[in-house]
């Protein structure tokens, strides 16, 4: 049902659908007034700051103008051109960060998916100590990100970290393998984030699994379906909408993850893990180039809208007529 449709029905119910056009118009406004308690805070909390970010992205706000930021010089689209024009001075850093963020978020989501779904399938069945195990599974998710970052930094320290010790003991690598610098830093970040975030997919999958009636499985078994076939033809299709939401949210969360790369690699990270949020943070809060940081944030927002819109279109959320 659309908002307009709802308005008409309210009008009809109120007996206001007669020939008087002005009464008809005022009755149409009723649903909008009813929306205002949520719309006003939403505007103040979400849309006004977004509008400010957009405005700041068009200014040269930096250390010289922050004390009087309402008069920061207007530079138009300069920051967007500097970052997005392939010949612009900031393009290598900006595109490098977009690439790092996309690779990191997609890879992390891909790794968390089977782990989360597998754990959910395991703990959805009858299992001794199931309640305890369900709680234990959430531990990585509830550990603060900063603690998680420090923990994994220690694990991946060259020579002294557990990762290098284990690799050396198993003769799989050198004790002096670098994980916190160079190309392997991406894998270090992915492993750390997968460990911390797989319970999110697990929770979503478990919630979806619990909505599937047992008699559906009983019927399938009576018809002779094997467990793999049951998973493929019954379980997966029935949890797919929830998993889709989980994948979309998970990808967005990984893309926006700032704390973990910052704690693990600091403000001058290797190129492979110089993700967009970290780049934005360094530009805004370390080098004081707030206008550029805001422009990068706007571009990040547009990028992040992509998986969100794809999911909403695929699930047809908000299209209930």
């Amino acid at each position: 049902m659309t908002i307009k449709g709802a308005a008409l029905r309210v009008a009809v119910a109120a007996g206001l659908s007669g020939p008087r056009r002005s009464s008809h118009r005022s009755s149409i406004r009723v649903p909008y007034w009813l929306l205002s308690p949520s719309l006003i805070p939403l505007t103040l909390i979400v849309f006004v700051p977004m509008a400010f970010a957009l405005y700041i992205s068009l200014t040269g706000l930096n250390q010289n103008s922050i004390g009087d930021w309402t008069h920061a010089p207007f530079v138009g689209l300069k920051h967007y051109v500097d970052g997005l024009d392939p010949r612009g001075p900031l393009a290598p850093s900006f595109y490098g960060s977009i690439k790092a963020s996309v690779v990191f978020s997609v890879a992390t989501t891909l790794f968390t998916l089977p782990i989360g779904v597998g754990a959910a399938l395991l703990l959805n069945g009858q299992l001794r100590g199931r309640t305890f195990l369900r709680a234990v599974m959430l531990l990585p998710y509830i550990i603060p990100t900063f603690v998680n970052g420090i923990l994994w930094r220690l694990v991946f320290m060259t020579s002294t970290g557990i990762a290098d010790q284990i690799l050396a003991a198993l003769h799989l690598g050198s004790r002096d393998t670098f994980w916190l610098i160079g190309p392997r830093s991406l894998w270090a970040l992915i492993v750390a984030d997968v460990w911390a975030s797989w319970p999110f997919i697990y929770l979503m999958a478990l919630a979806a699994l619990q909505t599937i009636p047992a008699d559906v499985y009983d019927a399938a078994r009576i018809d002779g379906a094997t467990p793999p076939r049951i998973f493929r033809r019954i379980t997966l299709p029935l949890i797919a909408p929830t998993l889709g939401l989980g994948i979309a949210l998970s990808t967005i969360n990984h893309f926006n993850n700032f704390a973990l790369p910052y704690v693990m690699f600091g403000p001058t990270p290797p190129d492979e893990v110089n993700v967009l949020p970290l780049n934005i943070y360094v530009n805004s809060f370390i080098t004081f180039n707030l206008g550029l940081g805001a422009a990068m944030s706007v571009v990040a927002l547009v990028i992040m809208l992509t998986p969100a819109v794809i999911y909403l279109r695929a699930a047809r959320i908000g299209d209930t007529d």
Partner: protein
Amino acid sequence: MADLFHGKLTRRRFLEVAGMGTAAAVAVPGFLEACAQSPSAPATGSPKPATLSLYIAKDTAHPQAQAQLMDMIKAQFAKENPGSSFTYDTYASAAEETTKLETSSAAQEGPDIFEFGSTLVPTAYATGSFEVFTNDMWNHIGGKGIFLPPQLTMSGPSPDKLIAVPVSGNPWAMVHNKAMFQAAGISKVPTTWSDFVDAAKAMTNGTDQWGTAMAPADGFDPWHKIWLFTTQLGGQLIDSTGKKGLLDSPESVEACAFWLDWMAKYKIAARQDAAFKGADEVRAFATGKIGMSVMAGPGGIVSYDNSPVAGQYEYTLGPTVPYGMTSLPAGGKPAQGFVSGQYYTLFRYSKNQELALNLLKVVVNPEIQYQYFKLRAQQPVVLDTFNKYPELKQGNWSPLYDAALKAYPTPFFSSWGPLEVEVGKAINKIASQIGISGSYSMSDLKSALTQVNQELQASLG
């Protein structure tokens, strides 16, 4: 509102939306401006009792000693200003420091006193959020003449535009392991970088003992070292107008190459150092794994005194003649460290500036300054303290005192912060290559420096 966006876009509808946007764009900055307080210059009379707020750097090495020192300052302040006190909040990283500076400047609301490290003072000055000290204000706290002269060079862009009061120093010198020197048959502390490399080679066994260490993954070490070598070579990292980055100049390239060659060419530092931060280098020296550490501050003394190298180490002034040379080149400066330390500033929008000034007077009191040394192993910045307490110029503190007097100021440009980050990015990138492959190419180094210089230039405008 929804109708405006979902309905058919007509001229009238467009004008409605555009009108609202224009009204907001005009009204919001005006409203915010109206909300701003109008600052007034502080007097130096008898202020009303109040509780001040301070935002200071956390002494992560001596947190209890810092609390003890602040209690002493508080007691003295309360004695001189009955009914007044202060509270303080601490920051543990440069990121917290800059974030607070930004938010307070933008909101024109924040602590009465901010503490900054020397290289952030130019940025703080650029925000216009801190009080420029008048002669009366300086006289109120004892006058400019009470301080070690070099410290005031980082207080402002010129002697009449100073915003920051020095409270402690962090001079840079070289520290070496006397036992390792003796074992390697080294009788003289190097004064040129050629001698330094030779001495380091003599102490290196290539496995668990190295002549020196480096910390290219640190947030600060890369620019410290590159500034040092570039200055000795007669170059600059940014031109004298502050508008042009010189990170890709021949001197900068040579400076970077020399430092990176410690790992790649001379093999006097371990390849594992590619992932080192400053604390890792201190640990390597404290455990006797390296013979020399360059640009070491007094902060290491407490660590070394509680380590296997206790009694075996000695601070001296570092080398000042570039590698392969016997004297400084034209334009080269005999720098072995830059002016470094902590500074207190008065927030321009504070309502308690007079009282805050009284607190600064307490902090630079020679006796309180001595407590910075005694409790926190930091170097005082007030001359009377050095005159009264001879131990501040004895033992390892003697070369550190010399280093403080001979320190060179870094350029007072607000763009120094971005410069630090850009130098770190280039060094980090090439050091990673060395860590992984053991070598790097000069073209890669030049390309990395050109790229970061372009990024720096974009932020310079």
